[in-house]
Every structure is written in structure tokens, then in C-alpha cells.
């Protein structure tokens, strides 16, 4: 169950037409249909944009008919069920107009006037242009209608009262299409539009507070994803996943291919790559990379990790961890933690290893993982789980070793942290 709500903000209608045309050219070239080209291409373009927005992740139960809804999304406030958005008139959005759809995307209000729960990332989708919203709507109208009533949400009091959303909206929702920054390049603006809008990246990569809101000032500073027990790293800190010192191609590879020379996507981010990013054009992924790389660092880049003093308090765990690492991990990740690129990710100087939250490295050792199978990496290599072989102390030791060896500067990990994640993720 992954929360798949992320941001979607798209460029406003004022985005230079030339840019939009360039971005869609490769897609058009593949679409060789005999229908009136305008009609076919708007649907095709809508399909592409719906993928950019990862609509399928929430609105389709795996294996069920596309967009038939009812996928459960557990939240700290109860379980939400994404509705049926097929063109069925009774149970889907078959009676909606393009205006209704745009208003919903733009304002977070349904055509009947009620307020949407912000699990639907309208705080991001509000950035989407009218033209792109219309294209997505045209595409949604083109999929087979499915008659299936949407399940009612199962929220605890008081969250089951939609009137409370007015307060949430006042605090966390700012309506408005994306406004290009004219001091930046067209490519940067395209990337910003996709990241802030349809990509809805901030839904996970901005800290979420007790009210389920993400504050603008903390945009992209990272956060624990509720209910999923994964940590979405900061995109602004060079000590986490800040991309300031990444090569552009490594960012592109990570997003689109799922593996890169700097790291690999797992968990909820693997889902985003699998459902969404792998299908995006090279130009668009590159634009997103350009924008992400430009995000200001909220702290100076870490000084040369090679100079970092080894923490003194890890003594025994470090020694035990080194032994386990040599026996279980070094074959693939190398004695010096350099990995074998790109399929066995490097652990030395890998920002996601030393982040302040140790959730992700602990989970990887407990549960292993496959990167997503993508167009550019259809048969990924898998990391074995070790939950069945190593006890909490052993896992804490090996993660402590990995987080502090080779110049990594993470904090040591306790067996208790491991135990909490074990019970949350392995039963």
C-alpha cells in the first residue's frame, strides 16, 4: 500500500508553446493513428500526463481494471479509498464536464461542492494548466467505463467531518497555476512545473505534520511517510538526497531507470518510477533533474567525509558489524562499500545511508528489495532480505557499521529501532 499522492503542478498556459511542442514531439511521432490527429493526440497527451501524475497508483487496485478505484490508502487518520474515475456515469466521473474536472484539480472541490481530502494531491495539482487538465480529462474519458461504486472512507472522528478541511486548506493550500520564473531557463521551468505539479513530489518529500499538512517553508526537506515506514529524504540537503553534487545523468537514471551510479530507488519511490517516471520522455525527466539539482541546499554540503572523525561510541557494534558485513554484504557491495555499478549500489558516501533517519537502511537489511523493473532496466537485480537470518542486534550492528564506515557519518543504530521496523514490516 503506498501512498502515492505526490505533487502535480504543471506549467501554466503561458508556458512557451514552443517548449510544450518540443516536449510532446517524440510522443506524437509514435502515435500513428488515422483518427483526426487533434483528437487522438489530446488523448495520447492526456495519457502521458496522467502517467506523470501517477493517477493509477491510487485509483487502481493492482490487477483490477484501470482507474476503477477503491484502492485502500491507510493514513494516520483512518483509511481512505480513492474513487472510481472511469467514465461510468453512475459510479465514475462519466457525468463530469472538463470544467468540473479542472475545478476539482485546481480547487480541491468536487462538482457537488464538497471538499476533497488532501490525500488527493490537489495542493500540487492546482499548478496544472487548463490545457493539461483538459488533456488528462480527455484521456480519462477514453478508458473503458467500469461500474463499481466507490467505497466510503473509513476515517476516525473527528477527521470524518469534511468541514474541518476548511481549516486545513487555510493553513496548507494555496490555489494557483504554476507561474514560470522568467529568470530561469525553459527547461528549468518545465522541470519545476512537473515536480511541483503533476509529480506531487512534496507529498512525501516535505515533512508532514500532525495535521497531515506540508508547510511551504519546509518544502522538499524530507520526512517519514506515515503508515509506510519509509523515510523520504530531503531533496535540499546535500547530506540526504540533496542532488547538488550529482551528475545530471545520475539523477535522470535514478528517476527514470530506477538505478544509478549514486543510488537506487526502493519502496514508495520504486512505485513512482515504476508507474510514472519510467514512461516520461528523456526531455521531461532531464528537466525535472535540472530543477531538482537547482534546489537550494538548506545546509552547506558536508565536508569531505573522508576527514570525518569516526564516532567513538560505536566500538563493539562497529566491530561486530564489520564481521557481518564481510561475511554477508561485501560480495556485492565490495569490501570498501563501493558497490558494483549500477546494480549493486555503493554504500560508501551514499547519502541515503547516513541520513538522520536510519529507517531506510534498516529496512533494506531486514526486507531486501528489488528496484522497479523499468523500460531501461527490465530485469533488475534483487537484494536478499536478512530478517530471517540476522537478529535485531546483528542488524543494528551491521547498519551501524555501514552508517559509520568509509567516511559515512550516520549515527549508530539500536536493536530497538530494528525491532520496531521488523514488527511493522515483516509479519
Amino acid at each position, binding site marked *: 500500500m503506498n501512498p502515492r499522492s505526490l505533487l502535480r503542478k504543471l506549467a501554466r498556459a503561458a508556458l512557451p508553446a514552443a517548449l510544450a511542442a518540443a516536449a510532446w514531439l517524440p510522443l506524437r511521432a509514435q502515435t500513428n493513428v488515422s483518427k483526426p490527429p487533434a483528437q487522438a493526440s489530446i488523448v495520447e497527451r492526456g495519457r502521458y500526463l496522467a502517467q506523470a501524475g501517477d493517477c493509477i497508483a491510487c485509483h487502481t487496485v*493492482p*490487477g483490477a481494471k484501470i482507474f476503477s478505484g477503491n484502492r485502500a490508502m491507510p493514513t494516520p487518520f483512518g483509511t481512505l479509498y480513492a474513487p472510481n474515475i472511469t467514465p461510468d456515469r453512475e459510479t465514475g466521473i462519466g457525468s463530469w464536464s472538463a470544467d468540473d474536472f479542472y475545478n476539482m484539480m485546481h480547487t480541491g472541490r468536487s462538482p457537488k461542492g464538497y471538499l476533497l481530502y488532501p490525500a488527493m494531491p490537489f495542493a500540487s495539482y492546482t499548478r496544472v494548466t487548463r490545457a493539461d487538465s483538459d488533456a488528462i480529462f480527455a484521456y480519462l474519458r477514453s478508458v473503458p467505463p467500469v461500474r463499481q461504486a466507490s467505497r466510503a472512507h473509513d476515517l476516525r472522528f473527528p477527521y470524518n467531518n469534511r468541514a474541518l478541511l476548511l481549516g486545513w486548506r487555510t493553513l496548507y493550500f494555496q490555489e494557483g497555476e504554476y507561474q514560470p520564473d522568467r529568470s530561469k531557463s525553459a527547461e528549468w521551468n518545465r522541470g519545476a512545473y512537473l515536480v511541483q505539479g503533476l509529480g506531487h513530489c512534496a507529498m512525501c518529500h516535505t515533512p508532514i505534520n500532525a495535521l497531515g499538512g506540508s508547510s511551504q517553508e519546509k518544502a522538499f526537506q524530507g520526512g517519514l511517510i506515515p503508515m509506510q515506514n519509509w523515510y523520504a529524504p530531503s531533496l535540499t540537503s546535500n547530506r540526504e538526497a540533496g542532488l547538488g553534487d550529482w551528475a545530471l545523468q545520475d539523477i535522470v537514471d535514478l528517476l527514470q531507470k530506477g538505478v544509478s551510479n549514486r543510488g537506487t530507488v526502493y519502496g514508495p519511490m*520504486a*512505485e513512482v*518510477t*515504476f508507474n510514472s517516471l519510467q514512461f516520461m520522455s528523456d526531455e521531461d525527466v532531464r528537466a525535472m533533474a535540472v530543477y531538482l539539482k537547482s534546489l537550494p541546499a538548506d545546509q552547506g554540503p558536508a565536508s569531505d567525509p573522508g576527514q570525518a572523525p569516526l564516532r567513538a561510541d560505536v566500538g563493539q557494534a562497529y566491530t561486530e558489524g564489520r564481521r557481518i558485513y564481510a561475511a554477508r554484504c561485501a560480495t*556485492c557491495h565490495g569490501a570498501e562499500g563501493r558497490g*558494483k555499478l549500477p*546494480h*549493486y549500489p555503493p554504500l560508501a558516501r551514499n547519502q541515503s545511508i547516513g541520513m538522520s533517519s536510519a529507517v531506510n537502511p534498516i529496512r533494506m537489511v531486514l*526486507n*531486501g*528489495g*528489488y*528496484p*522497479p*523493473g523499468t523500460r531501461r532496466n*527490465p*530485469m*533488475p*537485480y*534483487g*537484494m*536478499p*532480505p*536478512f*530478517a*530471517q*537470518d540476522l537478529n535485531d542486534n546483528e542488524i543494528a550492528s551491521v547498519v551501524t557499521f555501514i552508517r559509520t564506515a568509509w567516511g559515512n557519518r550516520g549515527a549508530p543504530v539500536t536493536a530497538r529501532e530494528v525491532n520496531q521496523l521488523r514488527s511493522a*514490516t*515483516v*509479519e
Partner: protein
Amino acid sequence: MKIILSVIGFGCLLVASVAHAQATAADRIPDTMEARVQACTGCHGAQGRGVENVYFPRLAGKPAGYLYNQLVAFRDGRRKYVPMNYLLAYLPDAYLMRMAEHFAALNPPPLVQPKVARSPDQVRDGQRIVTQGIPAKKIPACVTCHGTELGGREPGIPGLLGLRADYVSAQLGAWRFGVRTALAPDCMQFIASSLSEPEVAAVSAYLASLPVTTARPVRQPGLRLPLACGSQPQQGGQP
């Protein structure tokens, strides 16, 4: 002298290039399925041979269609086991089929089955159900579909040898309670929910008491099964 120097020089060159070749080989990732499925063999044993742990069954030699159906069911959540659901969540069909074919083609020597400490009566009851079914409940004999030698049947029916009693019993229970489901019509759901608990225990005990043989999945196209099973389509189509 010149000759000696050049021989030494050539020797150094050779050593250097050998060392270089070794470094590259060590860094190279084998482009094999074996390397790609290390995430599987950590639990299921080298070559999918099976391990001591009752709940990590042997994969090797099971029909590819059966393994593929299980991989898809785990990925899509139709068969629930959190570690497997998580591991497979973002893998495409074509790759899962390659994994299934990989393990189906392997045939490492089976593990020795531990002795089953069950009463002879229970084992005898199990044998009766496995070989004759329970006509009163319209439950066919296991051997009708899973093969006379219980080695399975191509393309979608698994062999039942080499499974521990607790595993078989847990799977039948999972089917009864909807935690494990197969493609509709789900014949095993009908069977599992028709069996009583003592009958499940008897079948599990008997199957676990059998020696593991070299029996491989039977190929017998066109055979009509006693129940309609989505995993074993009767007229071609996807397994």
C-alpha cells in the same frame, strides 16, 4: 641484455594486464538470472532447492506456469505474505516469467525430509484422501490433478513432494480464509474450505511422510480435470 630487459618488461606488462583484468572481473556484475534472483535464494536456498525452514519451500522443478502464477499473485496481493508482496511489488510480468522459467528448469538434489511424528492412523487417513479423494464431499483425489507420483502437472499444478506438514496445512488454511487465492475459478478454494481440520492434518501428515523422488511435472495436454481451475486452463491460453 636487451633481450633480457625486454622479456622482463613484457613480463611486467603481462602481470599488470592480468591484475587489471582481475579487478574488472571482480567489479563486473554477472549478466545471469542466477545473479538476479539472489533475493530469492537467500530464503529458498541455492538454486531454489529449499531450506530447513518449513515456510520457505523448494522452488526448483515446479512447473513454470505455477511459479509464474504465484509470483503474480504475490505481486498483486492475491496471495498475502508481506515480505513477498513487498519484494515483487514493482516487477513486470515478463521478468516474473523469466524468474519462473529459471527455477522451473533447475533440479538440485532435494533436501532429506525429516521424519514425521504423526500417528499411523492419521497418515493412513491422509493417504486415502490423497489417492481416493472424499467422494461424499465431491473432493477429488489429489493425485488426479497433482500427478500419480505427486510431481505436479504442466503448466500450472505444483508437485506436492518435499513440503513439510506445517506448510501444507498453512496453505490449505490460507485458501480457506482467503489469504491465498488463485485465478478464478479457484478450485483449491473449494477443496480447502470443504476439508475438515482433521482431514487437513491427515493430508499434510501423509504428504510430508512421503520420500522425495525424482518425479517431474507430468505433460498431458487435453486431460480434463475434475474441477475447473483458473490456474490450469483446459483449452490453451495463458497458464
